[in-house]
């Protein structure tokens, strides 16, 4: 369906120029937060007093370097905006050589800015949010570790480097989801995220091995140069394996089950890792591997299928949840589905996928932090049925959250409007069915986000009497305001098609195709669908009394959505239970057959020895007798030889 794309578009080859000037400092982007993490985690209690300040400072330092590099890139021609920084030889084994090389190009610098920028804001926010947590210093150490690993992931010029960061963010995610490890649910959620991510990582590592076998190198430069000449079947396999890795990290169906549980972590973590940055690593991987996916049509189609399924799956879950963070998590899944859809659509969609990724990073981080602020006000209650009419109690949070809300539903003029609209437009251009699904997703998004807004900030008061909502301190609201502003203004990136041109050296340039309908008509349709979703929410929730406990007499779809569309049940039925049975069978087999054979042999030998050891009775005269018998035999043998 999409195979025609590859032929008509030019896929750029990664060919970085040597680093100079500010680019030679690229390694500091990674090393600064890494050093921060090391100091905070190894320094122990000594760093308790100023640990959060150090963590924030390292993150801001990375951001500053990233910004400097961005400005330097802006000053260059679009042709030589790709800069490589070779640090040292990491692995050298025969003909296999992996350098610790960094790649600064238009794609990775955007990610660096997003990660360190949003990351710094969330660091600042966390100073307030985690103020009363005795382990705040450790929290900042983990956050810094995450920033280091994530920047490693996006700056690596080699699949193995990506893998290093990939595992690093997985570790940081595990540590942060389970940060409140005293809660069994948090510990279980961390474990679940870790295990499901391992499934994805297997795909990732197999893909890297296959890349090495096929191309003899794992560096982007080498692979992208040889990619167009490679066997299509091999490329498909590599693409599918990479997709598996992306699914694990980005919570795409079928490896989506961990993301909702990951909300057990502190809210800043949900905002930074499970909304703005880490979960988008899959999108980055697909975009970065464009030279593979453009030569692997089946894999690319699979990306689209996965994206569409996830897009609707997350949206449906978001409609039924009452936990404010889980609604946002479902929404995140859905929005990443949009990004994957963009990335799966090929050259036409990469830029918009990254665009949506960035705007989503702004408004979703904004909303998560806003949700954290609301929880802060409501004594850590996450059930929206216990909220209501909060707009007066927490005005700043409400206003910033509203900016994020308007952005995500795609209210005209806000950042989400520009980015999502573009993806839907491209989807319609490529395939009408995919476009329809994306359109429906936009409507559903409008519905559940409006539901969230109404249940939280409007409708009637449903608080517990002892709860006294209050606005959060400045240190938390200022990042909210910054992110709200970015949510509103993120659309400026599309001004005169800037982001498309900016990314063209990496993802290639696509001749604009005419959509089946005029662009303006498309936009009108999208806005109408969104308005319908909002109206539906208004009439079903805004006009009626919201019960304080969730009603149980609901239809089948709601029940399924409340159970995460039975994602866990499917995992249990398909993988966990058969796995357990297999392990049980293997254990029985091991105990009965293998151990039985080994131990039986040993027991047999033991029994035999028990019989024969009686010969060793300790009586020297018995031994002498056997010596005599032996001598006699020797004599008889000699006689037999000599006389016979």
């Amino acid at each position, binding site marked *: 369906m999409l195979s025609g794309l590859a032929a008509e578009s030019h896929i750029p080859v990664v060919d970085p120029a040597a680093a100079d000037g500010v680019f030679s400092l690229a390694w500091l982007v990674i090393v600064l937060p890494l050093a921060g993490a090391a100091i905070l985690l190894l320094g122990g209690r000594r760093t308790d007093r100023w640990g959060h300040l150090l963590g924030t400072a390292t993150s801001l330092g990375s951001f500053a370097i990233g910004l400097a590099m961005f400005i330097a890139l802006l000053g260059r021609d679009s042709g030589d905006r790709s800069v490589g920084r070779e640090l040292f030889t990491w692995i050298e084994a025969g003909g296999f050589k992996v350098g610790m090389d960094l790649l600064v190009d238009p794609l990775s610098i955007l990610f660096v800015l997003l990660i360190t920028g949003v990351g710094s804001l969330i660091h600042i926010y966390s100073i307030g949010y985690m103020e009363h947590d005795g382990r705040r210093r450790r929290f900042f150490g983990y956050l810094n570790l995450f920033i280091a690993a994530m920047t490693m992931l996006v700056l690596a010029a080699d699949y193995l480097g990506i893998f290093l960061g990939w595992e690093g963010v997985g570790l940081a995610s595990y540590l942060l989801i389970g940060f409140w490890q005293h809660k069994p649910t948090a510990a279980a959620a961390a474990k679940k995220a870790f295990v499901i991510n391992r499934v994805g990582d297997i795909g990732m590592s197999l893909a890297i091995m296959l890349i090495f076998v096929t191309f003899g190198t794992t560096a982007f430069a080498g692979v992208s140069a040889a990619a167009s000449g490679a066997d299509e079947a091999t490329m498909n396999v590599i693409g599918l394996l990479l997709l598996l890795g992306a699914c694990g990290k980005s919570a795409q169906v079928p490896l989506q089950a961990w993301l909702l549980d990951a909300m057990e972590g502190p809210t800043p973590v949900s905002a930074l890792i499970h909304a703005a940055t880490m979960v988008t690593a899959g999108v980055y991987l697909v975009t970065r591997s464009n030279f593979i996916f453009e030569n692997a049509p089946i894999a690319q189609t699979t990306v689209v299928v996965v994206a569409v399924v996830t897009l609707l799956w997350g949206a449906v879950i978001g409609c039924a949840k009452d936990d404010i963070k889980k609604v946002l998590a479902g929404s995140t899944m859905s929005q990443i589905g949009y990004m994957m859809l963009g990335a799966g659509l090929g050259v036409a969609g990469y830029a918009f996928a990254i665009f949506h990724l960035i705007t989503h990073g702004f408004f979703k981080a904004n909303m998560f932090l806003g949700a954290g602020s609301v929880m802060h006000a409501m004594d850590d209650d996450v059930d929206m049925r216990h909220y209501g009419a909060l707009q007066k109690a927490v005005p700043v949070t409400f206003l910033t959250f509203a900016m994020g809300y308007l952005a995500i539903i795609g209210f005209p003029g806000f950042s989400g409007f520009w980015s999502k609209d573009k993806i839907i437009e491209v989807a319609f251009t490529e395939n009408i069915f995919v476009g329809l699904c994306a359109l429906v997703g936009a409507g559903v998004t409008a519905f559940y986000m409006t539901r969230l807004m109404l249940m939280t900030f409007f409708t009637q008061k449903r608080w517990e009497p002892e709860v006294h909502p209050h606005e959060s301190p400045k240190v938390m609201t200022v990042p909210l305001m910054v992110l709200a502003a970015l949510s509103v203004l993120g659309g400026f990136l599309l001004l005169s098609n800037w982001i498309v041109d900016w990314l063209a050296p990496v993802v290639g340039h696509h001749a604009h195709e005419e959509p089946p309908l005029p662009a303006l008509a498309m936009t009108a349709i999208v806005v109408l669908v969104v308005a319908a979703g909002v109206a539906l929410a208004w009439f079903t929730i805004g006009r009626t009394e919201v019960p304080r406990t969730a009603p149980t007499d609901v239809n089948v779809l709601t029940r399924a959505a409340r159970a995460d569309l039975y994602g866990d049940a499917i995992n249990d039925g398909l993988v966990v239970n058969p796995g357990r049975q297999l392990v049980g069978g293997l254990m029985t087999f091991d105990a009965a057959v293998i151990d039985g054979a080994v131990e039986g042999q040993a027991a047999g030998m033991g029994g035999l020895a028990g019989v024969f*050891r009686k010969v*060793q*009775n*300790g*009586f*020297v*005269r018995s031994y*002498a*007798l056997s010596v*005599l018998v032996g001598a006699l035999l020797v004599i008889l043998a000699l006689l037999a030889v000599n006389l016979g």
Partner: protein
Amino acid sequence: MSTEPYIILSALLFTIGCVGVLVRRNAIVVFMCVELMLNASNLALVTFAKANGNLDGQIAAFFVMVVAAAEVVVGLAIIMTIFRTRRSASVDDASLLKY
């Protein structure tokens, strides 16, 4: 004269010594039987010396005697030590080194 009877006598004495080692329990008597076997072999050596017309056999017998003397000294010392600790000179009593 024929040397054959001497050799046969030597063989008989040797066999009797053998059986003595096997059936007697007193360590000292066992030792005596070992000496008997050594003496039997000495007899054969001396006989062969006579039969072959050179003195090498007698020298060998002489060395056997020296070694036997050394052996007796050490062996009897061991028996004494065992007797001191175990109050027994029976070879069957020293049978702890077994299965």
